[in-house]
C-alpha cells in the first residue's frame, strides 16, 4: 500500500522499474470546468495529482518524447506547456483565439490547432514559439486529424459541416468534403487509407477512402442504434482506431456509450456503457486500454480493449474533456 502513496512518485517509479521492465504510463485528463489537469497512473489507476491547467483546458496532447504536455487553454487564447514529470508550467505557445483541439507532428515540432471562435486553423512551431500559418476554414473549426505520412491535416468545422483537407507543404486547403451536422473529430487509420469523421448532431460517422495522393472519397456513413435510447442522444464525438485497423471505437456523448465497430465490415458490434456524456478517447501505448472522458459524471472509464469491456472508472476533476497517455 505504501507504494501507492501519491507523495512518492519517484519511489513508485523506481519500484516499478525494479519489478517490471516497463515504466508506468500516465494519463493526463483536461478538466474543462475545473480548470485543472488530473494525472492518473495507468497501472494502478490511482490519481497521482491534479494541477492547474489554465482557463477552460480542452484539447490535450503530449510531445513524442513524453516530456512536454500541451494543453489548449481555450479561454486564455493560448497553449500551455507543462513538464510531464514536475507538472510545472514551462511556457506558453501562441495558438490563435479560443484553441479547442489540436494534433502534433511526429517530430513534435508543429502543432495544428483549431480556433473555434475565429474560423482558423493555426500552425504553431513548438520550438520557436511562433505561428507559422493561419489557414481560414469553415465556421467553428473543431476536429483535427493528421495523416500518418503527415502530408495532410484534416479539420472539421461544426457549423459549415465540412472536413477540410489542408496540405501541410503549403498550408492550403485542397479538398472539402461535406459531412453530417456538427462534425467533431477526424481520425485516420494507421495505414492512412481511411478517414473517419464523427458528426455529433447528424448522429453518424462518415467513412472516407483516402487515395495514395491523399484525395478523399466518401464511401459510407456509419449509423447507430441502441434499443431504449432515443436516436437523438446517439451523438458521435471522439473516435479512435486500433493500430491494426480492426476496431473503431466511437464515443456517443449523452448516450453514455462507446460503440465498437468492426474495421472491415464497418458494422457496429457492441455498445459499451461508460460514464455520462462521454467525449474524447485515448489508448494506452500498448493498446491494452482505452480511456474515455465522461464530462457529466466527472470520471474516466477504463475499457479493456481486447475484452471490449469497461473495467473501471476513475474520478477526475470537473467536466473532463480530453485525455492523453504518455508514450512508452
Amino acid at each position: 500500500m505504501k507504494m501507492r502513496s501519491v507523495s512518492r512518485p519517484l519511489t513508485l517509479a523506481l519500484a516499478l522499474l525494479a519489478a517490471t521492465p516497463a515504466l508506468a504510463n500516465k494519463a493526463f485528463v483536461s478538466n474543462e470546468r475545473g480548470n485543472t489537469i488530473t494525472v492518473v497512473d495507468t497501472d494502478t489507476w490511482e490519481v497521482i495529482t491534479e494541477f492547474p491547467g489554465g482557463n477552460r483546458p480542452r484539447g490535450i496532447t503530449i510531445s513524442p518524447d513524453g516530456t512536454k504536455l500541451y494543453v489548449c487553454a481555450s479561454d486564455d487564447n493560448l497553449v500551455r506547456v507543462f513538464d510531464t514529470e514536475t507538472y510545472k508550467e514551462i511556457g506558453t505557445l501562441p495558438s490563435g483565439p479560443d484553441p479547442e483541439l489540436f494534433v502534433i507532428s511526429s517530430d513534435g515540432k508543429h502543432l495544428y490547432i483549431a480556433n473555434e471562435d475565429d474560423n482558423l486553423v493555426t500552425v504553431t512551431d513548438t520550438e520557436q514559439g511562433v505561428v507559422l500559418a493561419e489557414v481560414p476554414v469553415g465556421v467553428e473549426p473543431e476536429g483535427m486529424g493528421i495523416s500518418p505520412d503527415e502530408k495532410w491535416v484534416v479539420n472539421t468545422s461544426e457549423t459549415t459541416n465540412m472536413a477540410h483537407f489542408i496540405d501541410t507543404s503549403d498550408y492550403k486547403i485542397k479538398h472539402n468534403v461535406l459531412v453530417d451536422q456538427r462534425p467533431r473529430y477526424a481520425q485516420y487509420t494507421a495505414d492512412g487509407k481511411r478517414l473517419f469523421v464523427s458528426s455529433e448532431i447528424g448522429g453518424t460517422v462518415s467513412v472516407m477512402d483516402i487515395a495514395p495522393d491523399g484525395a478523399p472519397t466518401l464511401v459510407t456513413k456509419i449509423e447507430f442504434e441502441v434499443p431504449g435510447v432515443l436516436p437523438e442522444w446517439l451523438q458521435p464525438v471522439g473516435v479512435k482506431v486500433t493500430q491494426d485497423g480492426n476496431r473503431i471505437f466511437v464515443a456517443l456523448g449523452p448516450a453514455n456509450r462507446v460503440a465498437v465497430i468492426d474495421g472491415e465490415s464497418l458494422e457496429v458490434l457492441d455498445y459499451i456503457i461508460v460514464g455520462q456524456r462521454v467525449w474524447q478517447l485515448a489508448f494506452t501505448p500498448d493498446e491494452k486500454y482505452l480511456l474515455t472522458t465522461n464530462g457529466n459524471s466527472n470520471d474516466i472509464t477504463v475499457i479493456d480493449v481486447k475484452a471490449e469491456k469497461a473495467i473501471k472508472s476513475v474520478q477526475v476533476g470537473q467536466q473532463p474533456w480530453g485525455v492523453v497517455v504518455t508514450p512508452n
Partner: protein
Amino acid sequence: MRYVLMPLLAAVLAVLGASGALALDLRAAVLRVDYETLLPISRFDLRAEDLGFAGAMLADEDNGTTGRFLGHTYETIHKATDPEGADAALDEILGQGITLIVVLARDADVLRLADRAAEAGALVLNASAPGVALRDEDCRGNLLHIAPSNAMMADAVAQFAVWKQWKRWFLVSGSNPADIELAEAYRKAARKFGAKITDERTFEDTGGARRTDSGHVLVQRQLPVFTQGAEGHDLLIAADATDYFARYLGYHHWSPRPVMGSAGLWPTTFHAAHEAWGATQFQTRFEALTGRYVKPEDYNVWLALRVVGEAVTRASTDDAMALRDYALSDDFELAAFKGQKVTFRNWNGQLRQPILLYDGMITVSVSPQDGFLHRVSPLDTLGLDRPESACSAFN
C-alpha cells in the same frame, strides 16, 4: 447496426474540389414590421434598433464562410417599416428579384405578406408570428415557420410542470387578443398533458403608465388582492403576450407558488446566457459582431437564413421553391445549438425544435421533457400534431 452505402455519384459529388461547385450568389431580405407599442415592463426588454437584422448579419457571415469553399455568396438586405408601409416594402424587395424573405411581423401581416409574396414565387420564413392558425387552417405552401407557435411554447411549459408534478394551475391572462390566444394555448396544453386549470382570471389592460418611479408601490398593493382567494394550485400560469402585467406577478402573487408562462420561467427559442451544445460559440460570434446580447428575434432570423444556407449548400440551387422542397425533405437536417438536429414538419412548414425554459438568467430546462414520446420525434410532442392539423397547403 445499419450502414448505408451511398450511390457512387452522390459520393463523388460530395467530395468538393476547389473548383468543382456551381457558383451561386444568394440574395435574401429581412422585412421587419415595427408596431406602435408602449415601453416594455423591463428595460432589459428594450428593442434594439437592429433587432432581427443582427441575426441576419451573423447568418451572412456564417453562410458566407461555408460558401467560400463552394463558390456561394450570401447577401441579405434589411428593411424596417411601419404596418401601413409593409406591402410597399415587400413589393420593393420583390422588385429587386429577391425571393427569399424572412419576415418579423404579427400573424395577420405575415399571412397577407406571404400571399403577396406567393404571387412572385417567393418563399417567406416567419421569424416571429406565434399564432396557431398560421400553422393550421391558414397555412401557406410558401410560408415556413422558424418561430415556434404559441402551442409549442405552452406545451414546453406544460411538460415541465407535469414532469414536476405541478398539475394544478391558476391561469391569469391578459385581455388583448394576443393574450387571449396565448391563454387558449395553455388551456389546450393542460388538457393535452393532464394538468388541471383550477382557477382562471383576466387581468384587464386598462392602459396607463407602465414603468414609473413608484410603480412598484401600486403593484405591491394591487396584485396580492387580484390573486387572492384563487382555488388551490401548484403554479400560476401567466398568459401576457403584450407584456403589461406578467412580470409583476412574481413575489406579488397571493400564494407562495411559482409563476410560469409569460414570466417567472418562460419558454424561448434562445437567450444570451444559453451555453449548452456549443452555443457559447454562437454567443461569442454574435456579441463580437453586434456589441450586444442576442434576442430571440435575432436567433430566429439567423436560424431562418441558416436553413436557407444549409439548403443551398446541400442542394446547390438558388431557386426559392427548390430550396423550400429540400428543406421539407427527409434529407434536411440542421444543427441549431439545441442539442439535436432541427427539421421541418413537412405537413405544415413548422420547424421542429427544442424549446428552452429560461428564468431570465439561465436555461433552467429544455423541453421536450424526458418521457414524452411520439411516434415521429419527441419534438412533435410540442405544438400542433399532424392528425389534428387542418393544413392542406403541403399535401
